[in-house]
């Protein structure tokens, strides 16, 4: 590990309260220059509150926060001058054209009108919206608006890019196109901070991530570290068909419990968390059990996520 790595976001015991409600209840983390850092967590986990504090638009309620080495309480404008922010809502100006949205945003950062025009054209090229330059934002699809919002966040050539659920609500084509763009930004050395509900997105984009739950950090590491630490290498899914009830599942689980490091009983299937899925399947058959369908797969971040934050719906 390099000793010269630079912490762009330094967080210790960070808290955020709204009245009596504590959204963030004391978290520690560092985001190093050049990495893609992810916040995962269910709704209400405190991800967006944390992002707003890092964006220097929300005062902290306690703890230490340094962004690019500066204190947001006193150097907010200087910090924001070096950030790019892609909020959850697009917050584009729908009355203006695609290009005007970019040129105007550049002006807020103090770029000259000529610089703004030049940047706008480069960025429209980058997000493949050049042909839409003169179209009103109203007429864009959801994916195009997202791309434009990301382009807008890049107008000032930020050191640090904050993306709050960048691909929520997009179709698969639009998501993959956006991932491609974000990957290219990372290659170009931009430090990314991303919040997402999508595990595949986190696995695709993030070098390192934290899982947040109830305002706290439940786990931290690279996607593969987290899978190693909080799940097994493989998962064997056993389905016994529609006639087998949940009560029977519990009985069946008792029979195969010792074959896995951990077992989970769901209404339609049993999940056996094990390092060798095929061996578990063989053992299940040896015991005379005949599941209707068997699936052996690698553990994913989703398994980690569900283990850490539970299967209960959070609203």
């Amino acid at each position, binding site marked *: 590990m390099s000793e010269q790595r630079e912490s762009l976001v330094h967080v210790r015991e960070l808290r955020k309260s709204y009245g009596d409600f504590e959204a963030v209840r004391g978290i520690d983390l560092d985001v190093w220059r050049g990495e893609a850092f992810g916040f995962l967590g269910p709704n209400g986990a405190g991800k967006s509150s944390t992002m707003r504090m890092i964006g220097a*638009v929300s*005062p902290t309620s306690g703890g230490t926060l340094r962004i690019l080495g500066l204190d947001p309480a006193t150097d907010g*404008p200087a910090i924001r001058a070096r950030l790019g922010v892609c909020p959850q809502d697009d917050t584009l100006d*729908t009355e203006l054209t695609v290009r005007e949205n970019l040129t105007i945003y550049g*002006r*807020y950062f103090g770029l000259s009108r000529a610089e703004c025009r030049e940047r706008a054209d480069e960025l429209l090229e980058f997000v493949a919206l050049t042909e839409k330059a003169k179209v009103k934002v109203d007429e864009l699809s959801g994916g195009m608006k997202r791309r434009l919002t990301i382009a807008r966040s890049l107008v000032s050539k930020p050191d640090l890019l904050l993306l709050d659920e960048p691909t929520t609500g997009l179709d698969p084509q639009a998501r993959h196109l956006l991932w491609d763009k974000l990957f290219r930004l990372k290659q170009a050395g931009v430090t990314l901070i991303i919040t997402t509900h999508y595990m595949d997105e986190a696995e695709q984009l993030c070098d390192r991530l934290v899982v947040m739950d109830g305002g706290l950090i439940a786990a931290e590491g690279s996607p593969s570290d987290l899978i190693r630490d909080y799940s097994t290498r493989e998962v064997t899914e056993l389905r016994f068909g529609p006639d087998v009830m949940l009560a029977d599942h519990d009985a069946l689980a008792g029979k195969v419990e010792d074959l896995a490091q951990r077992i989970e009983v769901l209404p339609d299937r049993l999940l056996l968390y094990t390092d060798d899925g095929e061996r578990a399947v063989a053992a299940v058959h040896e015991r005379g059990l005949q599941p209707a369908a068997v699936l052996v797969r690698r553990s994913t971040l989703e398994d980690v996520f569900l283990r850490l934050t539970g299967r209960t719906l959070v609203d």
Partner: protein
Amino acid sequence: MTVALENGRRMFDYWLTVYKRTWKGTMISSFLLPMLYLAAMGIGLGSFVDSNGTGALGGVSYLQFIAPGLLASTALQIAVGESTYPVMSGLKWQKFFHSMIATPLRPADVVYGQLAFIAFRVLSSCAVFLVIIALFGGLKSPLGILGLPVALLVGMAVAGPIAAYATTLENDSGFAMVFRFGVVPAFLFSGAFFPVSQLPNWIEWLAYVSPLWHGVDLCRNLSLGTVNPWLALVNVVYLLAWFIAGTWLAVRGFTRKLIR
């Protein structure tokens, strides 16, 4: 201070860009309506009033009596229009204010930029209206052109408080109240069409409280050449007080909504 000026200028650019797209729509409210009032009241009703003698108005034609008042009222209406729906849109509908404060701009800068744009709208619209008034013979003294800065002051006096009020609303239904119980009564009872001394005593005092009366009174005294320097000073100081307090309230309101 210099930061606020520079940032306010960056914000003002935004409003000008928007205005390049929307200026046609504002023509009706900014010019057509005041002109209709000028024609209907000043010339239509005016010919009737004038033929019965205008001693109660100070012996000037009715057109000359109401024209300066209409100028101040136009400033009020433009300023209120630009500090209601656009503020709601920036905070709630399109949320572009939120994207602005993710940049080096601060909530106060957003307010200054908005006020600068309102100043631009009031000045440009009232300048054109003043020329039309002059062409109709609505100005008695050349000093009447000083009604333009007074109109600006009226606009600035009301823009801040209304924008501050807009930040406290959850939806736009509150604006109907502003127009029904604020703008319309002020327009009718602030002395634009008749001297407020004609009103029952308590309404007369309400008129003196309204910033519009001070604007109407000063515009008219300038145009008719009846300025009393002390009274004029009271008018200006009163409007400035509204402007300063309103700007402070607007900055507080924007900060509360945008920095959470």
